[in-house]
Structures are given as structure tokens and as C-alpha cells.
């Protein structure tokens, strides 16, 4: 049995500039932040980021690593707007393709199922379609016969194109050495589809257990990432910090607030970057531990 355990460095070394990268999670929830932090030091450029956007998008766009973003929103949940993202957008520094969050789901599903598009009503009449010449509509082909719905004869539907990814990164509550993973929190989001849509499939996890041991971590029905969907498994404890990773930990609201405060000004952002984002993942986790100690006192 192949052992899929790997490292952040190994995963980053498989990437190249110009790639399209999917990042799992949703807003400021269960984001593979250890990978995002590693990407900040990767020297890669010109990436397209595909994400239900949270701090991953603001960080990578602000650092100039991502030059293109495909998203339906960027939010920190408990704080509606990410100041880094806001600044990047307001200086005109990013190519944004905005899609309805349901269309985004269909785009990943289409890629995972290897079909060129999936149809939807979502997007029709909105600027998602009107301002994006790359998106196209398709005519309902069922005009008569038993499958024709008279109310939809003549309907044009939005043909959401497959969002194919060169690589996808998701963060799980636990994974095993063979490449299975489980989301024991309330929502698996669309992580399984990110993996299904990608060529290189990487799962970071709070903990990595032996093959067959995931059923001891939580109900097996929650282990929805099976090893046909993964290439590399990386143990990154606290790896989603400062986003939430329930039930392991909630969002670090104090830290997120510090991030937002620092990001609103160039000088304080430089300070924040030097304290938290200039070293390795281990350095980051040590700096966070110190931050948490200081907040307690």
C-alpha cells in the first residue's frame, strides 16, 4: 500500500507559476492555511486562485502571487470584508471572475465529472453573465416528446464551464496514510469536488492516522474523501488557523481581528508579516502560541 504522507515543501515543489489552484473550505472556515502560508514563500507567480474566498484570497492576491481569482465572494464571516482583498480590488490589481456561489459548485462538479459544462438558471440576467464574455448560454434541447416541459421550451440556460484545476488543497480534521480523509465538523463544503476537479490532489489534516483507523476518529459516513481522490497527505496540526476547524477548534477571533487591524495600514501590516508570516509553518505556530499567551494575560 502506497504511503501518501508528504510535506508542505514537497507539495509546493510540484507546482509551477501560472497554474490554476483550488483552495477548499468556505470563507473563514476550514481553510488549508498552512499551504496558503507556504505559498507566500514559494516564489510562484501568476497563479489563478479558485476559492469560496476567505483570508486565503486576500493574502495571496495582496502578495502578488495570485493575479487572477475565480470566486463568488471573499469574506471573513464574523468580519464581513477582508481589508487585504478590498485594497487589492480598489487599486485595480487583480483579474476577478465573479460567479454565483451555486454556479461555482456546478463548475467544480462538471470538472470532477469530466463534462464541459452543467446548466443552471443561476447567473441569467445578472452581471455574472452580462459582464463575462467567457460565459455562454445553452438552449434547452427538449422541445417536444415526453421529456419536454412546456414551461421551459425556448429557455436559454447558463452553461457553467468546468473549473478544471492544476492542483487542489483542502484541510481535513483527520486523514490516514493511504489517502482517505474525514470532515468531522458540521459541513464538508465542496472539498471533495475541489479534489475531483484537480490533477494534483493534496489534503492537509490536523492528524494523520494508520490506514483503517479513520472510523475511530468519527462516523465513517463523514469520511467522504476516499483515496481515489488524493495524491499527497500532509499532517499540519492547527493548519487551518486562524480559520475555524470544528470540532478541533473554532475560528481564532482575536487573531483574525489582529489580522484585520494590521492589514488596514501598510506599516502595521509589515510588522504583522514580519512577526507571523516570514518564517516556516513551525515558526508561525510558535508565534501564534505567544500571541495567545499574551492575549490571556
Amino acid at each position: 500500500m502506497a504511503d501518501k504522507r508528504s510535506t508542505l515543501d514537497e507539495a509546493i515543489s510540484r507546482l509551477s507559476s501560472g497554474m490554476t489552484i483550488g483552495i477548499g473550505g468556505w470563507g473563514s472556515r476550514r481553510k488549508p492555511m498552512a499551504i496558503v502560508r507556504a505559498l507566500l514563500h514559494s516564489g510562484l507567480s501568476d497563479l489563478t486562485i479558485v476559492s469560496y474566498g476567505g483570508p486565503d484570497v486576500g493574502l495571496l492576491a495582496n502578495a502578488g502571487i495570485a493575479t487572477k481569482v475565480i470566486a463568488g465572494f471573499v469574506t471573513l464571516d464574523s468580519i464581513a470584508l477582508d481589508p487585504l482583498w478590498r485594497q487589492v480590488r480598489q487599486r485595480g490589481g487583480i483579474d476577478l471572475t465573479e460567479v454565483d456561489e451555486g454556479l461555482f459548485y456546478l463548475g467544480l462538479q462538471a470538472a470532477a465529472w469530466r463534462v464541459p459544462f452543467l446548466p443552471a438558471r443561476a447567473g441569467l440576467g445578472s452581471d455574472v453573465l452580462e459582464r463575462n464574455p467567457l460565459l455562454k448560454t445553452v438552449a434547452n434541447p427538449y422541445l417536444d416528446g415526453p421529456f419536454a416541459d412546456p414551461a421551459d421550451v425556448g429557455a436559454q440556460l447558463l452553461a457553467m464551464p468546468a473549473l478544471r484545476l492544476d492542483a487542489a488543497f483542502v484541510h481535513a480534521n483527520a486523514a490516514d496514510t493511504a489517502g482517505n480523509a474525514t470532515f468531522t465538523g458540521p459541513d464538508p463544503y465542496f472539498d471533495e469536488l475541489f479534489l475531483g476537479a484537480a490533477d494534483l490532489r493534496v489534503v492537509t489534516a490536523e492528524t494523520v492516522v494508520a490506514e483503517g483507523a479513520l472510523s475511530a476518529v468519527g462516523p465513517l459516513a463523514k469520511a467522504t474523501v476516499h483515496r481515489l481522490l488524493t495524491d499527497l497527505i500532509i499532517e499540519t496540526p492547527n493548519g487551518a488557523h486562524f480559520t475555524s476547524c470544528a470540532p478541533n477548534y473554532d475560528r481564532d477571533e482575536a487573531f483574525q481581528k489582529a489580522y484585520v487591524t494590521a492589514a488596514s495600514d501598510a506599516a502595521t501590516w509589515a510588522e504583522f508579516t514580519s512577526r507571523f508570516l516570514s518564517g516556516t509553518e513551525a515558526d508561525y505556530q510558535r508565534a501564534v502560541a505567544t500571541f495567545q499567551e499574551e492575549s490571556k494575560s
Partner: protein
Amino acid sequence: MSPTRAEVCIAAIAEVWRDAGEIMASPFGTIPMVASRLAKRTFSPDLVLTDGEAAIIVGAPPITTKPQDLVREASVPYKTIFSIVWSGRRHIVMQASQIDQFGNQNLSAIGPHHQPKVQLIGVRGAPGNSVNHKTSYWVPDHSTRTFVQAVDTVCGVGYDRAKKAGVGATRFHELPRVVSNLGVFDFSGPDHEMALVSVHPGVSVDDVTRATGFALHIGDVVETPPPTDEQLAIISEIDPKGAREREIKS
């Protein structure tokens, strides 16, 4: 004691879910959230409410209820939510940073899309919501900056744009109500233009038209019915700390 403006808005928003039956009520903002729970506790007991995360909750508990004290009855992760959206069994009350006379809504960006003057949260699910199920809007700061001639980015689809996109967009498109801090509106004007239905107590028709950046259709305008004493008692039970008063300037 006479009801506050926030309480009038809550009662007005609750009305969008009257006789809604067994559908998901999705409120965005404190006042819509209190309104959805008021509707469930009174005239629409079958409404389906969520914990804002990934589950349906039992009853309509106070909004101060701690997550661990909510009773959950079914799991509805985002994937399931989209199935509900596309099935039509939902009536959402979204907010609008801008809304125009045909009900086009913007929550993406103010100014040019390639370089906005103000970047907002993004289109979110507004394009899909508005063409798949009932979509109403809550605007807590009615002014010529929010009620505009033309929105900068069309997220939620209005009647004119839906019509232009054809039957694929119009089949399930319906915008029942807009509630602002000044009044209640629908789209009963000519060609589905926005019409003033009622003004909140203490607000004149002039106040509303002056704060609106397009010509409103003005028909028979009444005063927004204030909440009853029974409704007021339920509102304070649902929102014991008065969070509703912080969402608008009374």
C-alpha cells in the same frame, strides 16, 4: 409604549413569510432574523429556519441562544442548501447596497467592476436566488445612494433584466417585497416598477421620494401596520438585548 422603527420593520418583514407554508426562510441581518422567528412563532409555524451554519433548528429561539443550546433537527450543509435554492422551496430576505426601480440588487462592488471605488462582499448567491425562488430585500439605510437609478453591478436580478434573459430566468423569478427603514415597497408599478406600498409611522411620502434616486410609483399609500402588543412581546423575547435597535438609525 409605541413601537420603535426597528420593530415596525420587523413586523413588516415578517409579513413576507405569511402563509408561506413549509419553506426555508433565510434572513440576512438582525432585523430580518428576528422577523423570520416572529413569523414562525405566529402565522407561519411550518417555516424552516437554520442555525446559520449547516443545520435546521427546532422552533424559533431567541437570537442570543448559544450554538450549543440550539436543538437541531436535520443537517443542511451548503451542498444541500443549493438543492433547496434550485427546488424553489425558499424565500430569502437579502440586503442590498444598491437597488434600482426594477429590483436589480448590488452587493458586489460600488463603481467600475475592474477597479471598484468600494469593494463589497461579492455576488454571493444573489444571481441564483433571484431567478430560482422568492427574493425580498431589506435596506436599513434608505437614501439616494442605496435606492439608485441603476446599480453598478447586477447581482440579484430585477424584473427588466429577467425579462431580457427570457423564460429560463423569468419562470421562477419573483421579488415580493422591499422593506427599508422608511417604508414597504413592491413591484406593482407599470412594467414591474417599484411602488410604494406603505410608509412607516412618522415618515411622509415626501420623505421617501426625496430619499429615492428614481421615480417611485405612488398608488394608494397607507401607513405600515405597527406590530401588535402580542407581536412586541414576542419580539422582545426573541431579541432580549435589543440588537434590533443597532441595525438602523430610528
